């Protein structure tokens, strides 16, 4: 090998090395994500497994770092940290992210759905629109994961609206639509963050609370209530979403990897959640919380009262009127097919 050839070879190698180092430096992206899910939970395990696959498939260019257990604060605080670039994403509840995209409030309208079959029918048609709308609002998400229906829980059985009168009924802090629903029904809502509910039940500040069986077990509310009304009150979901600004900085190839893998993770979480709630409800009964059925005629009255608030919902800034109409049309379509079961429970 002559000197010239050696130096040419060396120059080429060094250039190649420099280019690849440069590429590495400019493309390695750390995405910081906050979630309320505690480390060690199924949710975190699936998310970490997904992140690991993304890291491998992207040859280390995309790394997702998690802040579990709510250490970055509640949904509103996480959103602020995303805005200033301290975080690039988070796992939210539908309500938590609705501040940035109001249509996420749609599925949570109380007594909107009569069954999970209705939910499936609507979600298959509307989820893609919500995901697209959320993306226009600056958040890239990868599908939703079911949180399930909230059930009413109390120390005395709740079978009708009458049973709720003169009771202190909990409304989650920030859930303005449930608050409006309570007022429409002439009830007296008490607004508290979820973390104060257990104490509220203990001290008599609250009589009636609503949550999915899974949430009730995790927050240990089953130790403070005696009855669970098997009526699907309002539907909630979890959303894993990334700041679009951060996502756009990834190469198209890496974006595809993240979309594909996180899409799978969310799909799996969505699929297992239903069984989780079914099992959690069963376990609550075993722990001494008795299931209570509602009188179907009462429920229809209840629904009719709530439907009277739809015109008001239409005018609200925290509601997407166009998508609300579309949702109601899809529901009407489903019901006209005559497939609605009379099942009021899960």
């Amino acid at each position: 090998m002559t000197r010239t050839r050696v130096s040419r070879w060396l120059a080429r190698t060094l250039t190649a090395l420099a280019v690849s180092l440069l590429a590495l430096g400019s493309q390695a992206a750390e995405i910081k994500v906050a979630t309320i899910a505690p480390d060690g939970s199924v949710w975190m395990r699936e998310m970490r497994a997904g992140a690991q696959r993304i890291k491998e498939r992207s040859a280390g260019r995309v790394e997702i770092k998690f802040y579990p257990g709510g250490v970055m604060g509640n949904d509103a605080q996480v959103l602020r940290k995303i805005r200033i670039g301290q975080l690039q994403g988070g796992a939210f509840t539908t309500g938590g992210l609705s501040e940035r995209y109001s249509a996420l409030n749609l599925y949570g309208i109380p007594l909107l759905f009569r069954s999970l079959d209705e939910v499936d029918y609507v979600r298959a048609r509307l989820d893609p629109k919500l995901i697209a709308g959320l993306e226009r609002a600056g958040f890239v998400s990868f599908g939703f994961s079911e949180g399930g229906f909230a059930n009413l829980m109390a120390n005395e059985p709740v079978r009708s609206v009458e049973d709720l009168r003169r009771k202190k009924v909990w409304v989650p802090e920030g859930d303005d639509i449930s608050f409006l629903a309570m007022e429409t029904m002439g009830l007296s809502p008490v607004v508290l963050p979820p973390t104060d509910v257990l104490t509220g039940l203990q001290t008599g500040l609250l009589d009636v609370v609503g949550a999915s069986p899974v949430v009730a077990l995790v927050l240990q509310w089953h130790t403070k209530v005696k009855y669970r009304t098997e009526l699907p009150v309002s539907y909630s979901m979890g959303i894993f979403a990334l700041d679009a600004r951060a996502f756009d900085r990834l190469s198209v190839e890496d974006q595809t990897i993240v979309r594909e893998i996180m899409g799978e993770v969310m799909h799996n979480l969505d699929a297992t959640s239903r069984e989780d709630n079914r099992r959690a409800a069963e376990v609550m009964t075993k722990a001494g919380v008795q299931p209570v059925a509602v009188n179907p005629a009462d429920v229809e009255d209840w629904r009719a009262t709530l439907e009277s608030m739809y015109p008001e919902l239409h005018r609200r800034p925290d509601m997407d009127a166009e998508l609300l109409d579309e949702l109601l049309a899809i529901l009407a379509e489903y019901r006209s097919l005559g497939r609605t079961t009379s099942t009021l429970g899960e």
Partner: protein
Amino acid sequence: MFPGRTARRLFGFTALLAAAAGVGGCANLIGSMAADTLSAAILNENDPELVASGVPAYLLLVDGLISRSPDNESLLAAGAQLFALYGSRFETDPDRIVTLTAKARDYGERSICIAYTPACTWQGLDYDDFVSQLAAIQKKNIDYLYSYAIGWLSYLQATSEDWSAVAELPWVEAALERALELDETYENGGLHAYLGILDSLRPPALGGKPDAAKAHFERALELSQGKDLSIKVEYARRYARMVFDQELHDRLLEEVLASPVEADGFTLFNVLAKREAEQLLASSKEYF
């Protein structure tokens, strides 16, 4: 989940074996001196693998003795703790862990029912009734209350994927809290260590009590006089990770690595604690 300190009493079961052997008519099986020596030898062993391969023979022995003396509450209590410990610290096959800890729970329930008759009706009580029943149990029964809680807890840990484990945790926690009321120094702070772990399971955003967890761990350290390294490991793994305090996490684990492994009655678990401390430290940068 199980701090090493539990083991001190646990392996003390060999002395019970001797007693039971007398009752059951096999006085020649193990003399009490041999039992004490054996127990100390195990706890002071610095080779966990040797212990892991040897203890199953003990389990069989305990099972055999219990089947001969099914009403011996002390033997049942020791059995509950031994199966809980082996199932949660040494066994690796998930199905066997469930089988072993289910036995721990069963022995614990039987033991307390014999020692304290009102406990026979505890199963299936709702939370408030259970807590008011617990208020009546007295200090003389603390050993049985403890074995009952530990057996149950080990089973919940083994089945933590199931929602019933999540549902039952507050009951176990209430039992441990009652034991703490009766004697907070019990097991050199072991009760505090367990409650520290339980209070760290849920972050504050999900109704957890990090301040209570921290106070329990600190008190457990005080009561164990720093000899039991597994408390620091749990403090780091459960509490420091939950509140995202890397400085505390790394400090606790470095202290574990810098501490002597030999401590009378703790050597075996200190060896395990050091291994875990190394692993946790290695993943610290990635986690925080």
